[in-house]
């Protein structure tokens, strides 16, 4: 098992190296633009060249790449070209904000989707139609629309929840809870729409399998068949859907962070990219790949737990 995790992590590192190289190559054309943007209106060809040289951006890309990796291995991801803030701690701070949205959103999505999906699949009829209706509604209203609507309603008109801003968990737990409530709702609704439909489908498939009939013929209760046997077998595909949902939420978080003025990972990446803040872009790429690798790894391990056939020996 340890070996397996190590092997997977090694593969993740390889992947990160390749992706970084790609990012380096793609970005290498914009060093001058970045320098000019940094210098602002006083930029001249001379001062631009001087800055590029001072930053070491005039050296061959491969040299910079190797050097960057060398520093990264030592835990130093450099500093933002614009804010001089250390990239690592900035990314970690921003990631913490985004994760504090996404993780609760994902958990809630998972719980609601499983409940809804399982109910729909095992009750049929009205409950099933209700669940499918919810899924449809979630598909029709884009996250964007929901975000705007909920802010106006709860934040501005009713004033129940803060319209903007982020409170750190450690500072004020209740405040944190209030500050993430609307964003989490906005993430959860489309998530549930998608995932509950998937869970429902998987559950229906499972409930039609032969072993379910055989279990029934042994007098095993419907509850055990649905919640113990079918759910566990439906669990592993649902888990994969969930891991994809997790990655997708990072994209959605970008828009949500923008609307709610949250200092998250997405908006950080967005700003860095707009400015051409090269060290930050690189740091974000590394964290992005690391995150996805870890999510896939965790998914696979959980999958192994759910599904003995997928278990690693």
């Amino acid at each position: 098992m340890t070996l397996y995790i190590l092997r997977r992590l090694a593969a993740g590192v390889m992947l990160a190296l390749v992706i970084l190289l790609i990012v380096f190559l793609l970005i290498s054309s914009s060093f001058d633009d970045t320098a000019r943007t940094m210098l602002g209106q006083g930029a001249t060809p001379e001062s631009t060249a001087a800055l590029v040289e001072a930053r070491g951006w005039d050296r061959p890309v491969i040299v910079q790449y190797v050097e960057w990796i060398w520093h990264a291995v030592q835990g130093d991801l450099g500093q933002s070209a614009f804010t001089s803030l250390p990239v690592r701690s900035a990314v970690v701070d921003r990631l913490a904000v985004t994760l504090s949205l996404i993780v609760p959103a994902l958990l809630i999505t998972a719980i609601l989707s499983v409940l809804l999906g399982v109910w729909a699949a095992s009750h049929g009829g009205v409950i099933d139609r209700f669940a499918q209706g919810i899924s449809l509604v979630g598909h029709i209203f884009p996250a964007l629309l929901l975000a705007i609507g909920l802010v106006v309603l709860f934040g501005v008109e009713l004033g129940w929840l803060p319209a903007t801003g982020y409170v750190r968990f450690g500072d004020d737990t209740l405040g944190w809870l209030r500050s993430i409530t609307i964003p989490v709702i906005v993430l959860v609704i489309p998530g549930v729409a998608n995932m509950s439909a998937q869970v429902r489908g998987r559950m229906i498939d499972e409930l039609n399998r032969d072993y379910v009939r055989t279990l029934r013929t042994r007098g095993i209760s419907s509850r055990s068949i649905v919640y113990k046997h079918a759910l566990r077998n439906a669990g592993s595909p649902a888990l994969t859907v969930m891991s994809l949902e997790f990655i997708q939420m990072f994209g959605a978080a970008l828009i949500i962070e923008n609307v709610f003025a949250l200092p998250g990972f997405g908006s950080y990446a967005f700003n860095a990219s707009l400015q051409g803040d090269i060290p930050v872009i690189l740091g974000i790429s590394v964290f992005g790949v690391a995150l996805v690798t870890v999510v896939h790894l965790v998914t696979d391990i959980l999958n192994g737990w759910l599904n003995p056939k997928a278990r690693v020996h």
Partner: protein
Amino acid sequence: MSTSDDPTTQTVRTHSTEHVITAGADASQRTPTWKKVIRDPQAAITIGLLAAIFLIGALTPLIAPHGPNDADLSMVNAPVGTSGYLLGGDESGRDIFSRLLHSINTAAISALIGTTVALIVGVTGGLVGGYFNRATQSITEWTFALLMTLPGVLLLIILMPVTGGDYRATMFVFGFLLAPGIYRIVRNLVLGVKNELYVDAARVSGLGNVRILGRHVLSIVRGPIIIAAAFMAGSAIAVQSGLAFLGVGSTEIPSFGAMISSGFRNLYVAPAQFLWPSLLLGVITASLVLLGNALRDTLEGSKPKAKKVGAGQRVVADVERDGPTDPDALLVIRDLGIAYPGVDGAPNEVVRGVNLSLAPGDVLGLVGESGSGKTQTAFSTLGVLPSEAVITGGSIRFDGRELLGLDDTSMAALRGSAIAYIPQEPMSNLDPSFRVGSQLVEGLRAATSMPRKDAKARVIALLDRCGIVDPQRTFDAYPHEISGGMAQRVLIAGAVASRPKLLIADEPTTALDVTVQAEILDLLRDLQHELGMAVLLVTHNFGVVADICDRIAVMKEGEIVENGAAEEIFGAPRHEYTRMLLGSILDEDAVRTDPPAAVKGVAS
């Protein structure tokens, strides 16, 4: 690679879980796919809606009253209904209605580029990765895993310096990010199809790889691809809108996202402005998702419907509870009818007027060819008919008690304890996620409410009794870790664990090798003697019947044509159908005697 020589699978695959033949099925099967799609209301409505929207988009240059960027400063935030400005003007004095129309085209182009790139890359990758050798497979797999690992939207944003924010370039890149989804679908289908016998047959017919890929593989992949394309188009449009909302790319390009963004900024001045693009965007993406779902249902055959678990069997006729009882019989089935809804909705009876009687300790063989209704009869006795099935009449009496009309809880109490079941296909009848032992213990405890420890001891003893060499090890094994023959022994142990009065065995040996079959039959016979169970053995194999049954009932097309003691029927079959069946048996005398044929045609 051969699948049939894989030691874990069985060579023989019979289709004895009977197919319910539905009347008029032939006609509907030949309907062209597109007609079927059009006939589905959900597909028809969404296609119509999308066609209408995109047609309007295409006609925009003709019907839009203004250009997308024509600005009139006097029309800034003009209210809805202003002359010439149907939906009013935006913050720059542009006509919202015209921009809306132009945005349709942007959405269409986004969807087109994203989907096309994804399809080209994904399908090519999937065909190559699925069809060719291992090295090619691992390279494509790795490449697409790489694409998959890139956090999509983040990447699009990081790449802004490269794409320049141009939405077409962005969608081009996005296509690559969508491609792994298609790749997965295609590769899995190809891997499946590659081992399909008809692809082997094509290879044997001398078709080259390209021709096979194009002709046999692609045709199978087509349906799922069309479905995936609908979903991808939706997500391409949604992503393009999201990026435009954030302000990536030129605002000269009219798009829903840019319009929503502008409306959001103007939320307090003209709250309706962000509504129009949001609504249209919502309608388009929702239509694509719904269309995808509808296509999935029509092209892949509709998925089974959700139904209440434990709802019990449906009985539409009055059951005579007080009919005459036969005190000697354990199971009496009288005049049983079972129907399934046909294509046109009318019920289609698959079992008609079946009468059976089984005394305690008796072994009855229910024999027939596929589709004869024998399995349906067995299921109805267990109370596990599929939910579509309807019992149209008759009575099933077990131990003097009428089973038809009992709710599932009462049936569940009987099942496992008094009536047990052995299925045909051993592997698919074990829950793959639970250890063999725990499944058996759960069943035993459900039937007897025995303490866990005792139940475990009993199960291990039973496994031992059923001829499993290392019972503890099998107890702790997962189903995929044991062979088919062993799995069948496990299932038998599970069935007899609670010492039932009646054992219903549905083709219990059909999936097994002959030598294993003989052992299993021995086991069944011994257990039957030991426990004094009555056995209802459903089979198509007269050899099996001859080996174990006291009495035989022969079924044909839902009816019992002949019923009697085994010796009588084998010795002097009365019904013509029975005679025909017995005549078809390739017995030991049917040795080929004619010499090898003379070679004709081309001499070697």
